[in-house]
């Protein structure tokens, strides 16, 4: 088993290198490209097949390396859901689907996952809450899966961000899977890391650039949400249950709370929470003068810092305090960035007022 942990990510990495150049040409041929608009930060049409490439590369690698046993049945079911989500994502990338249809499909898939036994059964002492009622388990599972998928989709706004967050997330998940004796999950995570590193290489390059597209960010968000819940479920009877719960929460924390923050702001200023603007965390990071790579790296570091803070506080005061302190730190950072953004907007506005002829 041990050597598989090297072979599998290596295989997915190499598959990516092999496929992506061909996929680029194919996606340009079928018009699966991202065209620039006023919100987008790039100026050329960029192929969108990164997500499909990641899916194919990891599927091939895992089909070679996952053991043939009845244990993989639960992976097969998740795989079906991921495949459906991927197809939906590709169609959305090419033709733009209605938001309500997309949400409907996501809820159906979340229900399917729940029906296969992957669910949030307990809060493990967060806010003093443990085992949940059956209906609450169902509602929470659906909301969390659909919420994380969409939050992750929204984070995919600048080069390297979604992939960077996913690499950090899968790394943490892999460690958590190892310590709670879930080697097959760990193998899946590590295989994804291999493919994502290769993806980053293209995503950050100037001449072979690709995006993962909605297809990519949706499936990665979905895998993170579902496997995160699975990780916690399987760790329930181990001594690491708090560490695993906090680790999963910390990884999903920034995308989710950033989406909630943006929604709240939009509602407060009387707009629809889904109206597009440039106030996401990565937009704010760009306004402090960072380039894409650095802004992405900064957000990945922020997640790392929250994770570290969370684990320290977990150790000292317990899980509720850990989550509250993470919330406070996130609030402080995002408020400062928001403030900086406000200053920049006023600076531009004043410049305009100054040059208006009296």
């Amino acid at each position, binding site marked *: 088993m041990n050597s598989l942990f090297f072979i599998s990510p290596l295989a997915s990495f190499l598959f990516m290198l092999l496929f992506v150049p061909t996929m680029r040409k194919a996606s340009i041929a079928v018009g699966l490209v991202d065209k620039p608009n006023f919100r987008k930060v790039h100026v050329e049409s960029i192929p969108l097949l990164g997500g499909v490439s990641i899916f194919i590369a990891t599927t091939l690698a895992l089909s070679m390396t996952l053991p043939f046993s009845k244990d993989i049945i639960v992976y097969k079911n998740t795989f079906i859901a991921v495949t459906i989500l991927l197809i939906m994502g590709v169609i959305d990338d090419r033709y733009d689907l209605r938001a309500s249809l997309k949400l409907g499909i996501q809820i159906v898939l979340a229900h399917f996952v729940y029906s296969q036994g992957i669910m949030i059964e307990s809060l493990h002492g967060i806010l003093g809450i443990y085992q949940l009622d059956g209906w609450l388990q169902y509602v929470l599972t659906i909301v969390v899966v659909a919420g994380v998928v969409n939050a992750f989709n929204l984070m995919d706004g600048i080069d390297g961000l979604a992939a960077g967050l996913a690499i950090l997330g899968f790394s943490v998940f892999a460690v958590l899977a190892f310590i709670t004796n879930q080697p097959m999950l760990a193998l899946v995570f590590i295989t994804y890391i291999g493919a994502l590193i290769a993806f980053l290489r293209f995503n950050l390059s100037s001449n072979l650039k690709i995006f993962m597209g909605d297809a990519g960010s949706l499936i990665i968000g979905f895998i993170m949400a579902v496997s995160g819940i699975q990780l916690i479920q399987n760790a329930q009877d181990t001594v690491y249950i708090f560490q695993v719960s906090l680790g999963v929460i910390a990884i999903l924390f920034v995308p989710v709370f950033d989406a909630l923050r943006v929604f709240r702001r939009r509602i407060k200023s009387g707009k629809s929470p889904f109206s597009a603007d440039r106030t996401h965390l990565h937009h704010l990071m760009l306004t402090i003068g960072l380039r894409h790579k650095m802004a992405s790296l900064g957000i990945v570091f922020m997640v790392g810092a929250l994770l570290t803070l969370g684990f320290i506080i977990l150790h000292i005061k317990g899980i509720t305090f850990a989550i509250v302190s993470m919330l406070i730190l996130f609030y402080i950072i995002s408020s400062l960035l928001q*403030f*900086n953004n*406000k*200053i920049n907007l*006023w*600076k531009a*506005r*004043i410049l305009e*007022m*100054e*040059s*208006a*002829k*009296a």
Partner: protein
Amino acid sequence: MIQQQSSPKKIAIIGTVGVPANYGGFETLTEHLIEDLGEKHELTVYCSGKKYAKSERKSIYKGAKLKYLPFDANGVQSIPYDTLSIIHALFYADVLLILGVAGAWVLPFVRLFTNKKIIISIDGVEWKRDKWNTLAKWYLFWAEGIAVKYSHIDISDNEAIQDYTAARYGTLSRIIEYGADHTLKVPVSVEAIEKYNFLNNPYAFKVCRIEPENNVHWILEAFSLTNKMPLVMVGNWDKSEYGKALKAKYNQHPNIYILDPIYDQHKLDLLRSKASLYVHGHTAGGTNPSLVEAMYLGLPILAFGVSYNMVTTENRAQYFYSLENLIESISNLNMAELEVMGKELEKIAKRRYTWSHIAFKYHLLVIEALSSAPKVNVVPKTTAIPYQELLGLGHAHLKTVDSF
């Protein structure tokens, strides 16, 4: 009510370097407020102990009390300086006249716990000026908001700043500019000509801090490339690398006279009174004192085309927007037109920029701040009727407001 308004009030003037004024606009303003408002009210002025040696300190200056605090009035020390001045003033003053926003963070507490009237001058849009680092900009941006929200009256020194506060806060700022009538037209003497040979012929003049935001580099380059008239420029050249580099580059140029800073008002007036053109490159801040002074001296003005300068000169000066534009304007100068322009600008200055006019505006604001309507009394008048009487009328419940 009238009686209350005109009775002398204790006013604390906070946020300047101090008096006697040797420094910038706020200090000169304070000096004139002492002269004009001092008769009507009791003034106290807070002064920076860093700028006045122990031997020069006075406890009373022209009738105003002076208090010294051991901080600089500018830079980061302005925060404790203004803050402590405000807190000290709470013990006696009726009105706090605060010039600048550095200490504004305490104003919410002042409003909450005291009944002092606060008038604050927010200066130019300080938070966007190049001279501050990011942290200072953040603080000033935030403090300006606090200042406007928690003062009774806020003052802008320029219409363009008033537009900005209206846009950002949705409130009406009052405009009070600066005076210029402390400048004098000094006739040129023979000795002066011996010392400054450029005084014999037409020349352009500029006095300012040597900073990029005053477009010093453009102006020097433009005059070095044209030969319409020489440029005489006074400023603190040795304070920054920017200034030193420019001084080294243009010091030997036959068309440019570079002079070190002049703190003697009479000497400065002598040099600028006879100039044929005043060049004003400021891009920042509201109404610039040096600009209104040049107007008062009747100098024709070629100014950078930013809204503040246009408003100050009521659109009667000439404006430039770029280096090319500036060179073109200098080459096309027409002496006869300039003379007419100078007269027009002087008229504006005499109407708007005299200290008695400015001080009177401040006087009105003090009255307004003091007369802001007291809280409306909601206790019914029936409570004044004796209880027995009300009982007899069968309306005893009207004695208190509790029944409602």
